[in-house]
């Protein structure tokens, strides 16, 4: 924690760390926002594909302009990403090759072509190319304030576009078919969203690198999805999660030596996903487990009470005590003693003094009747229902 605070103070004093943190903040916010849409559109892996597909564009832009200035590389990456998208759409619409395969082909082939170009550039022995190969794994420390300014402006424009096309993007994400009947240019909107995704990916390449960029498009949206069913809440949460992962990852890696920024950011993002899947209200696995346990407890209690009641009916006295083994025989499949003890704590059954015999209390009988009525309303256990009617009659 001290280390992080120290890192936090460095944000205001250290030039490099300030740039890295700002860069990670912009990256996290932007990719987080687009991640929400990517997850909803079942295109989580598009980020992975695009981060690979951008490489030849970056290198070609460098070859053509001879500059390692961010803007031309950016434009090159976006063109390559758009080409990849168009190619994937051509393949999936015109042939029987499925989307995953088209994505795999674009990912590997574009990237391979980029590597080929890169090896050619590196062979030219040009000093200017320095740092081009850092796109592969990202090198956050190499971010300069010019980069931060550029990605800041680009990120701002991208977020603005999302706001402007909010309604349209919502439609594209949830019901493109309906959108088409309303006359929206779904194809163009789709391409715009993919382009924004490519923008986010290229922003991220420098910080976290090709491989890890995939996580920044999957993780924030997946985490945000757990917390809400509403799009605007999800997008805001997703952006927030992305920003948290970016900034805290950058700070953690700044606070310790030899802790690479990109992987730490991914680790934090994955942690957020883990926490969300486990603990998000309603959808959280932990709450689901607790709910299961509770309804299980309830059903077990009802079964034991019902057993006592039915055996009592045979003797003409529902409050008649019964030996544990005979109770256990009726409710096989659960530990009757544990349930009886729980019931005793709630004064629904009593144990006969000095023996292992148990009897319903009056309160227990009433509770059983209410529960059986509830169960009948829920139609949760049809078999129990029939027995219950027999018992209650």
């Amino acid at each position, binding site marked *: 924690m001290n280390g992080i605070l120290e890192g936090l103070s460095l944000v205001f004093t250290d030039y490099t760390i300030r740039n890295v943190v700002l860069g990670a903040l912009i990256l996290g916010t932007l990719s987080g926002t687009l991640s929400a849409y990517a997850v909803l559109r079942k295109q989580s892996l598009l980020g992975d594909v695009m981060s690979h597909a951008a490489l030849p564009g970056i290198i070609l832009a460098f070859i053509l302009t001879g500059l390692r200035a961010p803007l031309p590389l950016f434009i090159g990456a976006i063109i390559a990403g758009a080409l990849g998208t168009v190619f994937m759409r051509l393949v999936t619409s015109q042939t029987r*090759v499925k989307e995953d395969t088209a*994505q795999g*082909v674009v*990912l*590997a082939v574009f990237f391979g072509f980029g590597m080929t170009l890169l090896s050619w550039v590196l062979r030219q022995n040009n000093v200017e190319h320095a740092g081009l190969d850092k796109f592969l*794994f990202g090198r956050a420390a190499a971010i300069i304030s010019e980069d931060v300014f550029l990605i800041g402006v680009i990120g701002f424009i991208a977020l603005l576009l999302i706001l402007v096309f909010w309604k349209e993007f919502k439609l594209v994400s949830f019901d493109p078919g309906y959108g088409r009947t309303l006359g929206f240019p779904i194809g163009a909107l789709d391409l715009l969203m993919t382009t924004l995704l490519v923008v986010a990916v290229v922003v991220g390449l420098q910080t976290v690198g090709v491989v890890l960029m995939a996580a920044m498009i999957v993780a924030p949206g997946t985490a945000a999805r757990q917390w809400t069913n509403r799009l605007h809440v999800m997008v805001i949460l997703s952006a927030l999660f992305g920003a948290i992962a970016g900034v805290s990852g950058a700070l953690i890696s700044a606070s310790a030596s030899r802790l690479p920024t990109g992987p730490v950011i991914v*680790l934090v993002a994955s942690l957020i996903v883990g926490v969300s899947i486990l603990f998000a209200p309603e959808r959280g696995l932990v709450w689901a487990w607790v709910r299961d346990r509770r309804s299980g407890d309830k059903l077990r209690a009802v079964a034991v009470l019902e057993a006592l009641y039915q055996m009592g009916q045979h003797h003409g006295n529902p409050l008649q005590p019964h030996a544990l083994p005979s109770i256990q025989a009726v409710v096989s499949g659960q530990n009757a003693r544990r349930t009886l003890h729980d019931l005793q704590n709630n004064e629904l059954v009593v144990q006969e003094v000095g023996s292992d015999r148990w009897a319903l209390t009056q309160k227990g009988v009433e509770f059983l009747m209410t529960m059986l009525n509830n169960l009948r309303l829920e139609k949760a256990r049809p078999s129990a229902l029939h027995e219950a009617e027999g018992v209650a009659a």
Partner: protein
Amino acid sequence: MNQAIVEISLVASLVAAACALPGCFLVLRRMSLVSDAISHTVLFGIVVGFLLIGDTRSPLLILFAAGSGILAVLISELLLKTRRVREDAAIGLVFPLLFSVAVIIITRNLSNVHIDTDAVLLGEVVFAPFNRAALGGINLPRGVWVMGAILLINLVLLALFYKELKLSTFDPGLAAALGFAPTVIHYGLMTSVSVTAVGAFDHVGAVLVVALMIAPPASAYLLTDRLSRMLLYSVLIAIASALCGYAVARALDLNISGTMATFTGIFFVLALLFAPERGLVAKTQQRERRKQRFAVETLLVHLNTHELSPDAARENSIPHLTDELSWQPLFAQAAVQRAREGGYISERGETLLLTPTGREIARQRLGITAG
């Protein structure tokens, strides 16, 4: 030097063939991107294996690496089972995480050991001849033995479980109903993909593993409807990509893996364009031919409708066709030309007359049987 070229080509071909076989099933089962996940996770297995064993050359590392590939699949399936995450997201969550852990371990603990992260993505097949192993008195690059063994394993598995793989790929429901244990076949395939990725990884890197596993089978998928041919074609295309890539890379001094991946893409585009029946060119031609045949038939039906009517001379003239059928004059002339060549019509002045064959076709189209 010459021997090195032959040996590198041999290793590259073995890698290509070994990747293409399981790749076919990934493509058919719509699991192509699993190859991406597995090939990246291999690094995690190697790093963890190295931490435990402490030797970069131990064969046990291969087991760790293959195990980690299967682990990645298992974890993403576990995530999927919670029903909180979709399939694509499950894959996309797991492998960057494992890859990140691996990179962090490398930078923190192993920075003085030779596990080069660049080589992870790219591999270096040029080093293959320097790392040799003799078996039965034959001295060959280690890569030949390793990849040869992996290819052999893949072939044997394929031969043994061909029927099961085929059925569970094309009709998983029936396969399950017949008791073919789809889970076993699924994990068998995943194991095969992992082991192949690990072996290939050394030589060509993670990205070319994906290229060789996906692109050649995708090309072959465009060329044939038979599984056996698809397997054969994808192996051939993969080998051709590897050899062309190596030759071009050597001639122009380029990155070998990248150039091989580029060639898998070139072959895919060629198949996409020129595949018989399914290629874009063939499809355009088919569409054009259908359009032309339909135009001729429309013409014949039109002539048949009007040939006995009083104003047949006017109705059945070329200029009128452009009005009634809203055809462009050139299109109308082309249709008339083709009908004439087929011997379906003749001309008297401006008027078009049906020949008996032409009338027969028109009536068939109208559902009137002759006689």
